[in-house]
């Protein structure tokens, strides 16, 4: 992919992010931070590529270390978001 098409995706995604995040209710701002944390660990993709590649031993181990870090975030981030969201309840209709 050339630079301009990548940049286009980036700019469009910034706009999407802008509108989507403004629609998030302030009560859920903490879960928002937790889940953005989890998804920004999609950087694990780069870590997996490095960890799986042959050629440089150092690069491979750096990749594997990054996989560990990103996995902490992915599993931890989604799990803690899930835990928080489960606590938000409406008034009991009695």
């Amino acid at each position: 992919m050339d630079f301009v098409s990548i940049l286009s995706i980036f700019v469009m995604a910034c706009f999407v992010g802008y509108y989507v995040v403004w629609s998030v209710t302030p009560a859920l701002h903490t879960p928002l931070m937790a889940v953005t944390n989890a998804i920004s660990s999609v950087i694990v993709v780069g870590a997996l590529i490095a960890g799986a590649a042959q050629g440089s031993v150092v690069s491979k181990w750096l990749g594997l270390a990054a996989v560990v870090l990103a996995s902490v975030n992915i599993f931890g981030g989604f799990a803690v978001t899930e835990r928080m969201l489960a606590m938000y309840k409406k008034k009991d209709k009695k």
Partner: protein
Amino acid sequence: MELSASSAWVPLAYLVAGVLFIMALRGLSSPASSRAGNRYGMIGMTIAMVTTLITHGIASLPEIAGAIAIGGGIGFVTARRIKMTDMPQLVAAFHSLVGLAAVLVGLAAYLNPVAFGIAGADGVIETQSRVEMGLGIAIGAITFSGSIIAFLKLAGKMSGSPILLPGRHALNLGTLALIIGLVGCFTQDQDLWVIAAITALSFAIGFLLIIPIGGADMPVVVSMLNSYSGWAAAAMGFTLHNTAMIITGALVGSSGAILSYIMCKAMNRGFLSVIAGGFGAEAAASGGPAKEQRPWKRGSAEDAAYIMKEAETVIIIPGYGMAVSQAQHVLREMGDQLKALGVSVKYAIHPVAGRMPGHMNVLLAEANVPYDEVFELEDINGEFAQADVAFIIGANDVVNPAAKTDKSSPIYGMPVFDVDKAKTIFFVKRSMGGVGYAGVDNDVFYMDQTMMLLADAKKMVEDIVKALAH
């Protein structure tokens, strides 16, 4: 036979992952749809990871599976065990991991560019990739060291008060300029020392940027680091030409930026002035000696119980002090008792209450307070005039009328709750000595309708609960 990395399916799968991440954030527009949103996020992440594993050598799968299992296990157990009041430092710690992972991925790509498809025919990294790589590593490193400091401050392992180095602005700007210069240098010179210097200086600047920022500005800092972690992911996405990383990075980057903006606006402070740091230190120094002694009334738990029993409407304003003393559960008990007596109970939350955006909402949710009893500043502020009781627990600056009237006050212009319009004010506070974070005196203490309930928040509410039961 493994799929070629250039197959059309691969970018398509990353695109799907990116869209699922957008849906994950979209779900958070209401608590009802939020859990489905979180699931979309998990599916998106699974798609991204599986796609990468299928297209890049299965050969080292055991090692990779091991790495995922170790990290995932640590993450999962931490997420299960963490106390809700510790959420701000957990989020800061998670940010630091994203930052460090970005640095490691950047270095790995530098050492083995062929594996990432960013090397030219001669094995040299393409110029454009070098810029992106340099920036990605720099942002990642700043996120890492900045988040470590934020974590230490939030966890109370380091003093929350600002640490001001002499000439820090010049030092910071100089370091930033040097980093940018080195990234430029990196396009010409592919030596290891350049990338090592970028990494080291970025670690240093992240540290320098956060130490002068005080505890109550942490909501802005945590949001800002959230944003940085997104930009780091996006920069890596540019380096590796990966759409999922670019989309996600942009989403997270703008999310953090918007949260920082909301927090700054809620304090009526410019983003730059927060980042420049030092707030609180100067105000506390200047506001100290001039303070006069004014009369105030002290109330007891029994007084509070008696008056609230007779009230029609009680509005509770929680702040960081409630989180510190873990009073949210007993506070909900108090609310339940009052509701059983026919009192209408509402919770009012200021955007900057607590140490991160939405901090109070999560704590009240944890204590089983229904979210439709919890209101934002602009939605409830008109109701204080009709309220019988404003019950302030662990908050201070967010109810200070000086923000509306006193132009010389450091918090002037900050939107605050109009508690002074309520018939009776109960102010739960540990002692009269401590002032709010901004270091300014609060007129609410001395108002005729105010009763100070001086005790630990949790202890005081427990006593009120006992008194109400009689």
